[in-house]
């Protein structure tokens, strides 16, 4: 099913979705866009390239509360957080970010013990993917083509959207999307011309080029393994690295977290909070031993995790080439360049 709406009327669609549940969509901040829970439908803003932070927080918020407790009281008196989620709509997700959800699903929702929070949030959510605007230039940091993702890949979205001049075309991809799209009476029916435009757009998306290097997951995994002890290489790659956490926080695929008890006046909350393997104390043990005291060891861990360990454990690279880590890095460290260099090392 294909429907459409004028982009200037997007707030009407937003209002309808807000009636049905929680709407998460891009909003404009000072000098960037970010996904936010919408309380004013006028705030939904599709004039963005990509959001500063990835949309992973829709399923894996920066802080997820597990339990509220009182210090010294029996455990049975602690209040467990119950996620009674309304249906949620994650609106305007770029194809590379949609792909990141599938990769995160393996970790949180398929392999080993299931993460109940990720699963609950994921199941409650309908994803509106949104193709990159192929009439605008690509950002020089992006490299999602390298990971086999294209600017207008509908895969993984429930409903996929493309921009047609001043209109937005919405195509249902999954049964879940089909059902929702049928209910959205605020939308107009699309014409056969629109159908053709949509199909062409998807095809043209393949020719919209980001940076590209031929990366086979098995080859790169093996290569990265083989240069683990090449300290010169990693020292060079990390020479500028400040060891801050912005690359991992903005990454749609980084999932490391800490479990923290925050207590004030005898009451507290146990929650999980994003953590970063780039932080010095990430692996500091109670004994004082720390296997990764050096910047190069931490950057090596980050790159190896994405391009080697994750392949070994789950079969796929844990990176979608969205370019956020490169764009946000205060010193322009570029994981794409590191991968290119690693292949040659």
């Amino acid at each position, binding site marked *: 099913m294909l429907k459409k709406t004028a982009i200037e009327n997007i707030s009407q669609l937003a209002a309808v979705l807000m009636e049905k549940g929680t709407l998460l969509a891009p909003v404009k*901040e*000072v*000098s*960037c866009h970010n996904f936010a829970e919408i309380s004013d439908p006028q705030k939904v803003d599709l004039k963005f390239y990509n959001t*500063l*932070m990835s949309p992973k927080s829709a399923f894996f918020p*920066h*802080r997820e509360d597990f339990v509220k407790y009182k210090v010294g009281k029996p455990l049975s008196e602690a209040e467990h957080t119950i996620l009674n989620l309304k249906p949620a709509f994650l609106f305007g997700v770029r194809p590379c970010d949609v792909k990141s959800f599938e990769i995160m699903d393996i970790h949180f929702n398929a392999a080993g013990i299931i993460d109940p929070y990720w699963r609950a949030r994921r199941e409650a959510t309908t994803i509106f993917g949104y193709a990159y605007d192929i009439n605008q230039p690509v950002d*020089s*940091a992006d490299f999602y083509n390298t990971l086999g993702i294209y600017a207008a890949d509908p895969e993984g979205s429930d409903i996929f959207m493309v921009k047609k001049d001043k209109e937005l075309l919405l195509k249902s991809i999954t049964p879940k999307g089909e059902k929702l799209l049928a209910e959205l009476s605020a939308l107009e029916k699309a014409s056969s011309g629109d159908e053709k435009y949509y199909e062409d757009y998807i095809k043209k998306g393949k020719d919209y080029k980001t940076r590209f290097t031929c990366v086979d997951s098995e080859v790169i995994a093996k290569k990265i393994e083989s240069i683990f002890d090449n300290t010169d290489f990693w020292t060079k790659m990390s*020479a*500028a690295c*400040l*060891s*801050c*956490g*912005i690359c991992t*926080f*903005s990454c749609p695929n980084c999932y490391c977290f*800490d479990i*923290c008890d*925050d207590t004030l006046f005898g009451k507290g909350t146990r*929650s999980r*909070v994003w*953590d*970063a393997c780039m*932080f*010095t*104390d990430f692996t500091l043990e109670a004994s004082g031993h720390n296997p990764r005291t050096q910047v190069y060891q931490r950057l090596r861990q980050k790159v190896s995790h994405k391009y080697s360990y994750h392949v070994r454990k789950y079969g796929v690279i844990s990176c979608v080439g969205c370019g956020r880590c*490169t*764009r*946000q890095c*205060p*010193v*322009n*460290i*570029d994981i*794409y*360049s590191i991968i290119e260099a690693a292949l040659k090392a």
Partner: protein
Amino acid sequence: MTDFKKIEENLKTEAGRLLKEGLVTVVLSYGKGFDENHPMPYAAKTIADVENIVFNQYCNYNMARYLVRYPQGTKIAIAVKAADSRAVIQLIQEEKVKRENLVILGIPVQGMKNPKTGEVIDSKTTCGLYNPVLYDILLGEEVHGQKNALPYEVLAEYEAMDKDARWEFWEKELNKCIRCYACRKACPMCYCDPCFIDQSKPKWADKAPQSPGNMMYHLTRFHHLAGRCIDCGECSRACPVDIPLYLFHKKVAKECEEMFNQKAGMSIEDKPVLVDFRVEDSDKILE
């Protein structure tokens, strides 16, 4: 206007010479990034490395940040712009590096740009000086006859706010913080190991990005940089969520200057202002 190409040439020449003659083991300057608009901080250690050195209007990193990574005694050449040279001076005052171990390559420059926004950064977020305060070798023409931008002009709007408004302002701004610690990591003066915020006993603040932890982190950091911040603006440029950290630092620097008649990092003869007690010191700080 600044001749960036000329400075790059001079930088390469001097770096090559210093490494070749064995006067230094590392040259801290700027290198190629993934494209022209995104150069990177760069440590040249061999003569072959010198080829990778670049200098353009986006090279606004304060390389003094990297000085403390090297063991005391390492002979280092460091490329510095105006504010960066003040960081080096401040680090010398704080005995983190020794003057005799440094070859300071001064770069007079105007019109540096923030690679993320394309904005000229001169005095809005930096100290407004064009010429390095301290150097051994100057790599370009000193800027003269150009009125220095005033470092505290940008404070006007902030200072017009009353106490409550300022509190509200910082509450709102600091609420945006995602605690990636890029500000502290980009800061040449933030070298504490461990930083108070990483301690677990006592634990000073929650890890989650929220008040009061965000307040605790930033206000403590702001105050720890009182009289030490050399106004390079690296923290503000590193911040992914555009918190105007420079406003607080500039405000404190201004007060410090008014009270003690001393600016951070202007002379290696100075003592850090909050370490040095002088009978004639202002009592305003106690009020």
